[in-house]
C-alpha cells in the first residue's frame, strides 16, 4: 500500500513538473489591423519570415533612443540578414500628427526595414507596450520569446546574440 501511495505521489509530481516544462510561453503575435508604409491595410497575423526569426521594434520619429537603435542596427542589418536570415519589422507609433512623415523619414535615413504604421496604438496596446523603444524577438514558429524596453549604445550586439540562440533552438532564459 505504501509503495502504491509513493508511486501515486511520484507520478503526480512528475506529471506536474512535466506540465510546467512543456508549458513554455507560447505567446503569439496578436491579430491587429495596421498599415504598411505605403498606406495599405495590413493585419499583424500575417507577419512571418519563412520560419526564420523576426525582430519587432516599436519606435517613433520623435523617440531619440528608438532612432538610435534602428540606426545602429541599420549599419549591421545586411550582415545580420546574411548570417541569420532575421527580419526586422519596425512598427511606428507615430500618430496622426507625424505619421505622414514616417515614410519620408525612413527613406531619408536609407533604412531597408519593413515598416508598419500603428497610428492609433492598436498593436502597441495589444502587446502591452508602455514605453518606446520596445523590442520583441519572435522565433521561427511565430512565438514571442523575449522582450525588452529602452536602448543602450551597443545594445544591438546583445540582440544579435539572442537571434543566434533562437536559430540554434536554445531557450532564452533572461
Amino acid at each position, binding site marked *: 500500500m505504501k509503495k502504491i501511495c509513493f508511486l*501515486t505521489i511520484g507520478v503526480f509530481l512528475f506529471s506536474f513538473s512535466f506540465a510546467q516544462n512543456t508549458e513554455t510561453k507560447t505567446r503569439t503575435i496578436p491579430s491587429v489591423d495596421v498599415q504598411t508604409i*505605403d498606406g495599405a491595410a495590413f493585419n499583424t497575423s500575417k507577419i512571418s519570415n519563412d520560419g526564420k526569426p523576426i525582430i519587432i521594434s516599436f519606435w517613433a520619429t520623435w523617440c531619440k533612443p528608438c532612432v538610435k537603435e534602428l540606426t545602429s542596427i541599420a549599419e549591421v542589418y545586411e550582415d545580420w540578414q546574411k548570417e541569420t536570415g532575421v527580419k526586422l519589422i519596425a512598427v511606428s507609433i507615430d500618430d*496622426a500628427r507625424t505619421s505622414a512623415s514616417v515614410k*519620408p523619414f525612413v527613406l*531619408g535615413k536609407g533604412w531597408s526595414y519593413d515598416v508598419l504604421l500603428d497610428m492609433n496604438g492598436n498593436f502597441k496596446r495589444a502587446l502591452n507596450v508602455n514605453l518606446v523603444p520596445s523590442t520583441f524577438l519572435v522565433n521561427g514558429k511565430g512565438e514571442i520569446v*523575449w*522582450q525588452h524596453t*529602452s536602448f*543602450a549604445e551597443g*545594445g544591438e550586439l546583445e540582440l544579435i546574440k539572442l537571434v543566434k540562440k533562437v536559430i540554434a533552438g536554445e531557450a532564452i532564459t533572461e
Partner: protein
Amino acid sequence: MYIHRRTGILILLICFVPAFVFAQNLINLGEIHGNFQLDAQYYNADSTIGAPAVPEKILSNGFLNLIYTKGNFSAGLRYENYLNVMQGFDPRYKGNGIPYRYASYTQEGMEVTVGSFYEQFGDNGIILRSYEERSLGFDNALDGVKLKYNPCPGITLKALIADQRFFFDKAGLVRGADGEFSINDIFSKCMSKYKTRFTIGGSVVSKYQKDQDPIYKLPENVAAFAGRAKVSRPKFDIRTEYAYKVNDPSAINNFIYKPGEALIVNASVYPKKGMSIMLEGKRIDNMNFRSDRTATGNALIINYLPAMTKQHIYSLAAMYPYASQPNGEMSYQGTIRYKIKKETMLGGKYGTDVALNYSCSNSIDKKQINDSTAIQQTGTLGYKSDFFKIGNEKYFEDLNLEVGHKFSKTLKTNFMFANMIYNKAVIEGHIGTSTVYANVGVADITYMIQDEKSIRFELQHLYTKQDEGSWAMGLVEYTTPKWFCAALDMYDYGNEVSSKQIHYYSVMIGVTKNANRIAISYGKQREGILCVGGVCRQVPASNGIQINITSSF
C-alpha cells in the same frame, strides 16, 4: 497476476493523472498578458521656483492593464489609481476604479467589440479619434459597441455607437460609420501590375446632446462628414482629407452657428535613396467637436486636430510647443531630409544625416457677416471666411536644421539649430503677453567607452528677450544595458528678475531588465506645458523625488 480492486483503481488514477495534465496543455486555456505603470512623486514646497506646497506630500498615478486572449476571443481591462493624482493632471482623476474594460471577437473578416475601445477614422482622425496619451492624462475612450467588417479584400467598413469616458464617469452619445476602399485590392485582377495605389474613404460621425438651454436654440444632433483620398507610388505619395461639420454651437466657439470645415493635404517625393521632401498644408475652421458642448480643456473631445509642426525632442526647443487652434488656423510645413553619402567630403566615413524643416501657423481670415454683427458674436453665424486666404495673425513659426554625423565607431554627434516665433497670448490663452522670438542651439554628443557602455553629453542654449529670458542647459548621461544615470541642469540666466535666475537641476538613476524599468529622479523642475499632438497640459513647478516604474508581462 491478481490485482486487488483498490490497487486497481489507484493504478488507473495514476495512469489518468498525467493524461489529464497533458490534455490541459493541449486544450489551450488562453493567455493573460498585461503591463503595469506607477509614477509617484514626493513634493517639497519651494517658493523660489513657485512650487506649491502639497498637503498629501506624496502623489501618484498607477495603471494596470490586463488582456486575455484565447483564439479569436479577447477581453481586457485597465485599473487606474489616483491617490491622489499628481500635479499637473486634471484633479477630476480621483480615487480608483476600472474605467476601461472590453470583450472582442473576430471571425471571418468580422470583428465585434463590446465595451471600451479606441478608434480613428481616416489617417488624420479629423472627425473621430479616441486614444490614450497617459503622459498628458488624456483618455477619451469610447464605450459601447464597435463593428468592423471586411466583406471582400480592399473594403473595410466600421460602425460604432458609444458614449465617452469622462474621468471615472461616462458622458455624451456618439455614432459613427466609416468605409475605406483600396481600389487596387478591389479590382486586383486588372490592377495587379499597377505600381500606383489608390485608396478612397468616407466617414460620418454624429453626436447627440439634449437642449436644456433657456437662451439658445441648440441642435441636439450634430453630424460631421469627411472624405479622403490617397495616391501612393514608390517615389511619390499624396493624401488629402476634407471634413464638414454642421452647426455646432459650443463654449469653445462662443455659441456661433457657423458650420465647421477642415482640409488637410500631405505630399511627399523620394527622388532617390536617402532623400525625401515632404510638404503639407492644413486649414481648420470652427472644428471643435465634443460630446458635451459646454466642455473645455481636454475633456470629451471627439475628434483630433493635429499640430502641423515638428515634434522637438530637445527640452529647450520643446519649451514653446504649438497647440492646434480649433476655432481657426491655416498651417503649412515642409521638410527636406537628405543623407549625405559616406566617403564624400561632407559625408565622412559613415555619412551625414541632414534634415531641414519649416512650419508656420496663422489665423484664418475672418470677416463680419453684416455690419451689425461682430465677428464671433454669440447666437449668430459668427463670421465669413475665405477658404484659401491666410489670416493676418501669426501663431507660430519654426525653422530648424538638424545634422547628425558619426565621426568614428565611438563618437556620434547630432546638432540642431532652430529659430522660433511663438504667439504666447493665443497658444496659452494669456492675453497681453508678448510673442516670444527664440533661437535654440543644441549639441548632442555620444561617446562609446566600451562595448556597451556609453556616455552622452547634451548642451543646449535658448536665446530670447521675452518671457523668462535666455536659458542654458547641460546634461550628462551614462548608459549601460542594465542601468543608466544622468544629471542635468537648466539655468535661466537671462531672466530679467534676478531672483528668478535659478538653476533647475536634477539627477536620475534607472535600471532596466527586459521589459521592466525603474527610474528615480530628484531635483527641481520648472513649470511648463507638456504638449503631445495638439493637446497640452500645464505642469506646475515641483521639487522632490520622483519614481517611475513600468513593467510588461
